[in-house]
């Protein structure tokens, strides 16, 4: 790998590729090319990530002292609402499917585009409109209900909530359109010879995600509209003063928002499956188990929502049932973890930037997942519910796992997308900052939760002070890591060394074309006659190992 950082005179970018094939603003705004749409998502979701990060830092800095530090109570409540809504609806849900799903999925299948290119373009615009409305609504109306919008607080807060609720409703359509597009693409546009068991695992993960997007998203749309309608016209859906039921809101909200966790994390798991195989140059250990466990998670994920409501007053029997179903999610995840680690076994592992993220991902997913099992254990959740323990747990999954996967994807496919290499040394530095900073931010939050600090607290008791300061210190490291990445990636766009079509000699179909790819992806439609992780040289004797 080392030689890649040396300028290679022989390599040059292809003369015509998807980025320079058409010129002018119009050619971008009306493009039907899945790769350009992916870049549009890249820009938009990066802005969302930066905004969400700024709001997160504002929250962390507020917690430097137990009392008021840099903002008032209402501003604080708005900040964590902004952070939650932006990170979840504007970044986590659209990011990996929008960027890497759009960019890689057709390439990996050997297709020229997604099944419905116009719907694909529409999904970006729907996203942009929904995101703008949600952001405008939150900033101008001072939304303070948290990203969960629990009734009846969300019905009675003096802040304006209708715009952000409609924003979430609109964003849902973007998600549904993307999911629908991917499902149809996987069914209809696979290259000749690509049977279901030869589909790359990233595609399996995106496929499982798409099913959840299509089936679950309408429920959040419905729920947010009901809240908006109740706020505007006073219908009594959720407000007990009008005969409504506030716990019903929680059921409806989590019926989407729990599967939404898998909308966020499954694509990331798919990235890691690809990245592990790529850095280890290995067949994926237990391909079928990984593929089916993605579908398994998507399926049981629909029936686990009630574990968010163990102390809400729902029946004890419900709590037991939801606890058992939640454990099944844990088992599917455990299977994946075993298989990723198994893939490393007997590999030829290149120590590169994605490896640091894989390492971080494995630790965070196991720790985050096991603490998920812990909070799904009913008696333990009684103490942890709505404390920083839960905050730390879901950040381990959503930042620890999802963002590690997102960053691994960027570092794996950057040369494919732009034809140039980022600086490997800076990549290692930044990834170390991210992994260490992440641990330093969120491990203290587990302890805060144990100690009993409830979440969404503007002021807290003095005994929680030290751990809060530690967490804030860690978050600055984390932020610093992201800034380094942003700088070296932007630098690499123009000045990075030319990567060549397939810098790491990988086997997926996406590496089987030039980097950046031509507008139509492949000059010759590829045919597939082996699985995507065949790293054995033709003619050499292949060693088979069974463990």
């Amino acid at each position, binding site marked *: 790998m080392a030689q890649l950082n040396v300028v290679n005179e022989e390599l040059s970018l292809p003369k015509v590729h998807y980025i320079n094939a058409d010129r002018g603003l119009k050619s971008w705004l009306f493009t039907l090319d899945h790769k350009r749409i992916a870049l549009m998502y890249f820009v938009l979701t990066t802005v969302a990530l930066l905004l969400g990060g700024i709001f997160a830092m504002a929250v962390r800095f507020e917690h430097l002292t137990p009392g008021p530090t840099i903002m008032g109570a209402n501003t604080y409540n708005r900040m964590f609402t902004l952070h939650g809504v932006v990170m979840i609806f504007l970044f986590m849900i659209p990011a990996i499917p929008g960027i890497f799903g759009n960019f890689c999925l057709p390439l990996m299948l050997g297709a020229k585009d997604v099944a419905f290119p116009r719907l694909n373009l529409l999904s970006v615009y729907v996203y942009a409109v929904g995101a703008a409305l949600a952001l405008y609504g939150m900033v101008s109306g001072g939304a303070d209900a948290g990203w969960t919008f*629990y009734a009846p607080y969300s019905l009675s807060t003096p802040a304006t909530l209708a715009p952000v609720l409609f924003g979430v409703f609109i964003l849902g359509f973007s998600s549904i359109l993307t999911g629908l597009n991917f499902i149809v693409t996987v069914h209809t546009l696979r290259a000749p010879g690509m049977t279901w068991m030869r589909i790359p695992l990233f595609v399996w993960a995106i496929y499982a995600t798409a099913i959840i997007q299509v089936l679950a998203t309408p429920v959040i749309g419905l729920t947010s509209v009901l809240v908006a309608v109740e706020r505007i016209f006073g219908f009594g859906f959720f407000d*007990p003063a009008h005969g409504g039921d506030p716990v019903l809101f929680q059921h409806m909200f989590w019926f989407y928002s729990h599967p939404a966790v898998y909308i966020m994390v499954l694509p990331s798991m798919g990235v890691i499956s690809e990245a592990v195989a790529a850095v280890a140059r290995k067949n994926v250990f237990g391909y079928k188990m990984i593929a089916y466990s993605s579908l398994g998670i998507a399926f049981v994920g629909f029936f686990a929502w009630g574990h968010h409501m163990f102390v809400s007053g729902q029946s*004890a029997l419900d709590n037991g049932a939801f606890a058992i179903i939640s454990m099944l999610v*844990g088992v599917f995840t*455990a299977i994946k973890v075993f*298989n990723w680690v198994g893939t*490393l076994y007997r590999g030829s592992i290149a120590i590169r930037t994605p490896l640091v993220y894989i390492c971080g991902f494995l630790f965070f997913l196991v720790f985050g997942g096991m603490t998920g099992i812990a909070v799904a254990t009913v008696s333990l959740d009684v103490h942890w519910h709505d404390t920083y323990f839960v905050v730390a747990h879901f950040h381990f999954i959503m930042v620890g796992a999802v963002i590690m996967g997102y960053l691994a994807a960027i570092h794996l496919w950057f040369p494919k997308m732009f034809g140039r290499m980022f600086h490997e040394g800076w990549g290692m530095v930044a990834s170390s900052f991210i992994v260490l900073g992440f641990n330093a931010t969120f491990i203290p939050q587990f302890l805060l939760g144990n100690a009993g600090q409830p979440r969404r607290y503007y002021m807290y008791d003095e005994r929680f002070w030290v751990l809060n300061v530690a967490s804030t210190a860690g978050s600055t490291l984390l932020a610093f890591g992201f800034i380094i990445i942003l700088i070296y990636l932007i630098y690499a766009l123009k000045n990075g060394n030319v990567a060549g079509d397939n810098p790491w000699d990988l086997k997926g179909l996406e590496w089987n074309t030039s980097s950046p790819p031509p507008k139509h992806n492949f000059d010759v439609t590829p045919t597939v006659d082996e699985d995507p992780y065949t790293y054995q040289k033709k003619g050499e004797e292949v060693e088979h190992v069974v463990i």
Partner: protein
Amino acid sequence: MNELMRQLLFLPEQASTFAVKVDKLHYFVVTVTMVASVLTGLIATWFFFRFRERRPNASTPIVSASHRFELAVISVPLIFFFLWVWVGFKDYIWYVTPPKNTTDIYVTGKKWMWHFAYPDGPNSNASVTVPANRPVRLLMTSRDVIHSFYVPDFRIKQDVIPGRYTETWFEATKPGRYRIYCAEFCGTWHSQMIGEVVVLPGPEFDAWMVKQKQGLAGRVDSSGSGEEFKGDLATYGRRLAGAYGCLKCHSLDGAPHIGPTWVDLYRRKTLLASGETIIADEGYLTESMMDPYVKVVKGYQQVMPSFRGKLAAPEAAALVEFIKSLRGDNLENVAPKEPVYGPVERR
């Protein structure tokens, strides 16, 4: 061992029977979690070095799993997970099943305070007194939005929901003072919706209770109006209203008389003679007893005498509580009938 683990994990004191029970499972789960995730990290890291790239673009063997390995991978986590679910659910069922003969306390959450009431008399805000080593049951409801009653030292938490009653119970084991938090986001001062549980040893609690039942007016205080009274504040207020002649001008049937009726007066939007609109809260009601002409309700004459110096502070409070207890039909009563509580207010 218990103490070591508790301190390592920053867990608060174990001040209830449930805390002791639940922490054992806590240690078990957290230990396995730590071991599993660190082990995964270590194995992966060891593989990075053991199987690092020795020459570029090398061929690798095809490694596949035997059925025995697959079975182990699925069953080992499953066994641990279901063991935890089983123990956790059993403890949980114990936790949601209060024993008989509990001391019942009614809890009302409202932005941003906790209100406590014993069935036979005393009321309090923010602080609730309970006996040690006796089961205490809390019957909880909310006046506005969802709150969540949380005492970390007891490891208990229960959402408090408007329009419904939820219950939780605990048996405190150590006398002392323990923090109450609101754990469900409820607005601007959510983080200040705190209170404390004061745990007294059994006999001390009984003595405290007897003293409380003597009623506010019965206690020796500066007012000197030492009339013996047993009962709650609102009942006391009703008697005082008769004794001080309030009811000659203020009706209890909703009809306007010389003064405004007291039915539904509390929290009513009231138009004043000055043209200003105010909400008739505790502050306003007290002010009108003491300085009746500062804020006269539109349409009424300035005829009420001032009661400044005539009403003792607890008596004024009792009158306010009495007025608060007078609620008519325009408040929608969605709560079940039995407990002694105020209904959910229409916003």
